[in-house]
């Protein structure tokens, strides 16, 4: 009798477990089938009342079997249902991955800053220090000390803003920093000095009353033009990539001798000739040379012991060539449609 009841409970329960389709109903069923008030529990109580020890033992075994079997069935089905439900939940959370992400606004650094930082970092990694120089200069530092005395034709090409205060002007080139540094530092000297320079030019696509230059200076024993070439080639390969070629042409600057201009192979056409390089294959990017002995002497550096090289270039020009910007004024308009592209 009890045996039949147990089998009935087992079969009914297994059947119901099979038909259960949610974890919630399964858990309710579990309480109903295995709980304290369930038929199985009641039956177990009846077995404990059995007097025949043999029958009691057999029934007990059977009852345990039923209980274990049902427990296992519950656990197995619960796992399956939980998996199914989690899967369904995830399905319901499906996103359109092509929808735009949340916007974290990061501002843009000015293209001139970006170019300057890159150049500065390269020279710093080569052992150069960055120094700052004054934008308001005396005639001496901007011209005289650099072998450009009064009435020198080189002054014509650098239209200078003079200040009402006597003997002061807005520097036309960063080269004056060379003098400040050499006056204050015993060689070896290795510096770069980026900064703002001024020319009283009318504003148009290629002229600006303000632009930026970077000056470099190295003074030490046994510094040669071969070192200058190596230094600038190293810089250029870091800045433009390893395949870029350089070309040094003789030139003239009052404060260097020998002097040179450096061209780089056109990065637009790789030297084949295009509109950017005016079919030359090369683009002029900087002026350089060995520091003139008179300049060294003026800074109390003995040119018989020390030699040096210097170089300088325009940051706007580098940035214009790199980003194909054809109007200098863009750098100072601060148009967001411009700034946001960098």
């Amino acid at each position: 009798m009890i045996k039949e009841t147990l089998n009935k409970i087992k079969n009914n329960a297994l059947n119901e477990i099979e038909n259960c389709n949610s974890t919630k109903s399964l858990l309710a069923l579990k309480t109903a089938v295995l709980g304290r008030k369930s038929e199985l529990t009641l039956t177990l109580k009846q077995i404990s009342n059995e007097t025949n020890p043999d029958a009691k033992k057999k029934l007990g075994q059977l009852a345990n079997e039923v209980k274990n079997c049902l427990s296992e069935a519950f656990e197995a089905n619960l796992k399956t249902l939980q998996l199914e439900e989690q899967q369904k939940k995830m399905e319901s959370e499906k996103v359109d991955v092509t929808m735009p992400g949340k916007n974290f606004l990061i501002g843009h650094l000015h293209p001139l800053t970006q170019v300057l930082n890159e150049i500065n970092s390269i020279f710093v990694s080569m052992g150069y220090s960055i120094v700052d120089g004054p934008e308001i200069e005396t005639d001496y530092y901007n011209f005289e000390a650099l072998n450009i005395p009064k009435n020198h034709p080189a002054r014509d090409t650098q239209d200078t803003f003079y200040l009402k205060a006597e003997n002061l002007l807005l520097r036309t080139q960063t080269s004056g920093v060379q003098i400040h540094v050499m006056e204050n530092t015993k060689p070896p000297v290795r510096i770069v000095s980026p900064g703002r320079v001024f020319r009283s030019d009318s504003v148009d696509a290629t002229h600006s009353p303000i632009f930026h230059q970077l000056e470099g200076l190295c003074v030490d024993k046994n510094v040669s033009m071969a070192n200058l070439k190596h230094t600038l080639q190293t810089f250029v390969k870091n800045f433009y990539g390893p395949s870029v070629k350089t070309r040094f042409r003789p030139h003239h600057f009052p404060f260097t001798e020998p002097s040179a201009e450096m061209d780089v192979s056109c990065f637009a056409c790789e030297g084949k000739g295009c509109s950017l390089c005016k079919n030359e294959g090369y683009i002029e990017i900087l002026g350089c040379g060995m520091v003139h002995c008179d300049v060294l002497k003026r800074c109390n550096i003995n040119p018989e012991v020390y030699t040096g090289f210097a170089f300088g270039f325009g940051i706007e020009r580098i940035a214009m060539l790199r980003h194909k910007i054809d109007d200098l004024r863009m750098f100072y308009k601060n148009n967001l449609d411009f700034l946001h592209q960098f």
Partner: protein
Amino acid sequence: MKISTDWLKEYADLSNITDAELCSKLTMTGTNVETYTNTSERLKNIVIGKIVSIEKHKNADNLSVCQVNIKTKTVQIITSATNIKQNAIIPVCLDGSTTANGIKIKKSKFRGEISDGMMCSLEEIGLSKADFPYADENGIFLIEEPNCEVGQTVCEAFNLADTILELEITSNRPDCLSAVGLAREVCASFKIPFNLKPPKNFCTNKNESGCFEVEVKSKNCLRYMAKVVENVKIGPSPSWMKKRLKACGIKPINNIVDITNYVLLEFGVPMHAFDLNKLSGNKIVVRQAQNNETLETLMHTTAILNENDLVVCDAEKPLVVAGIIGGTDSSISSNTSTILFEVACFDKTCVRKTAQKISARTESSIRFEKGINPNCCEQSMNRACELIEILKAGSVSPKTTDIKNYDIATKTVNLDENKINNLIGFNLSKNEMIEILNSLDFKTENNQIIVPPHRIDIENCADIAEEIARIYGYDKIEPAAQKFEIEPKTNLNWLFENKLRQIFTAFGCDETFSYSFSNIAEIEKTGLNVETELKKAVEIANPFGEETRFLKTSTIPAIMESIAYNFKNKQKAAWLFEIGRTYELTEQNKPLEPKKLTVGLYGNNADFFTLKGMIESMFNYFKIRSHNFKPLKQMPFHDYVACEILSGNTILGKFGEIHPDVCKNFKLNCKVFVAVLNLEPIFNLKSEVVTLKPISKFPQSSFDLTLLCDENLTCGEIEQKIKKSVGNILKSCEIFAIYKNESLGENLKSVSFNITLQSQTHTLEKAEIEKTMNKLIEDLEQIGATLKDKP
């Protein structure tokens, strides 16, 4: 400087050198070739034709339809020219050609009739009436040359084939502003012989007849050479001379004027010719001009002179502004019969200043102002006389007047091959060096290099090193790495500025760059006090218009301009920042250039606390804690939404909302928030190295506190009180709500704080927390802040 290869070939055998090789070599040895043009390439497809027939155009009265034989075929040309005749020989531009003045010719239809090209005028094939006086300048060039054959190109027919180089000559090399100078460079660069036959002192007229006197009264005239040529026959120069002059951009005029220009271009030493019969008193006087003396120049201008200007005069009046431009009075005309050649040397600074003043940059002045060695005068005088002879243009007198007013010794430089090798970083032998120097006309004697007179730029060993290195080839110098010990000197200011840039871009601000100038209009527009600003402003003596009169004393106008510019462009928001300087002069005229960080915001929900949050976060990043905020009432800020940041007595900056009047001035109908921070004091306050505070092992405990107080009690005051009351177990104290409502009572507000306590030494027990809280509530009551909902 322009020069033709035709001329260079007189001194250098260029037969095995292409134009491209020539130009590249010149560029790489220091004479930069900007462009070069081959005339035969440029004038290709322009040929000689013969007009076979002329008919009226059916649909146009003023056009003619011509059949033109060009040997290989007959082409049809439509023209509006009226001087054409049957059987006339004419130049024809065929399809695809370009005229000398740059017009591209294409086969096209004129009112239904095909035209295969265009008949040309003299000008269109690059010639002028000086070349063919019989030609009609306004019509088609009707060729009368006997040797001209139908079918020839114009280059063949008129010997126009040539290559013209356009060169950039650096200011230290005036000797290269000449055919001879450039040819010398070419020969040295290619290691080919330089064939210059120095002109001899010529004299064809045995009897001295032209009687004149030269007097030099100014030290600005270093040398004055003069020579008379009689029996002058004025006429056109030969075509070879005209061709070379034109290639250099000089218009041929007549044989005498052309000789002076030719010699100038050949040797780079300017010269002049006077009509001797027009000179008063048979006298040349070189002197400083008198104040307000005037001269009608050949450029049809009146030069007004003063005592700083040098003039060449006759007995009465100025004839020439020395070394710059001649006057009309003494110029060569078709009736001239006796001339005086002048080859002189004038002081370069004097010429430069006068040329600038009278705005006359002439072929002569550009050479004088770069410097000419007076020792170079003879060969030009000799050459001019030689040309008179060659052109049979007159007879040269024997007497040469030569007044020397200088003492210039031949320069020598010691040849120190070790020094040169060390400076350049190559290893040339002494002989290799001497060979290069000799090719540039330097002579060497016992280790001494004798500098040729035309090389005024050579002074020292480095100059010699450059000569050797550039002819040897800069590109052949092997780059060599430097060996040195690095002494890194980190520029902390640069790192600081870059960190600021990173921080503000992280906040979403874009970096701007502005000009350093300011002007009164802009100061007024920004609502700043003009008088105060101008008092400290650095004023420019030669401003380029009103825009650049001052250097800026404030960065606010510039950021406002950038804001306004983007607002006008309909940008919904602009969050901008810039690191830049302002400029001031101290009372001792010492310039100050302090750096500022300027921030400007509008849109994207920006408000005062957005800006304040940026600044506080930045201070927090740099571990700056000594600062406090104090309300500020100052233009251009809003009267009640602005403050100053102080650390002790040091002003770190100010920020706030921009005053509505200023916004109106900039046509901004939105709220704008601006901050100006002084970088130097902020840099000085930031701490470099952090010392770790032990991290507490004990649990923290936090509670909320909502206070009711007068609306004028500031959050800062409450916070100060909380900090003081709780003491060192206060971990944090954050405001999370501020509420104002009538229901609270008039002029009252509620402020909610979340307070977290933690001890470094022990677990905070309930009793201790309660004690702290009760003390805090009591302390807060002292400043009028009471607990809103008493527990």
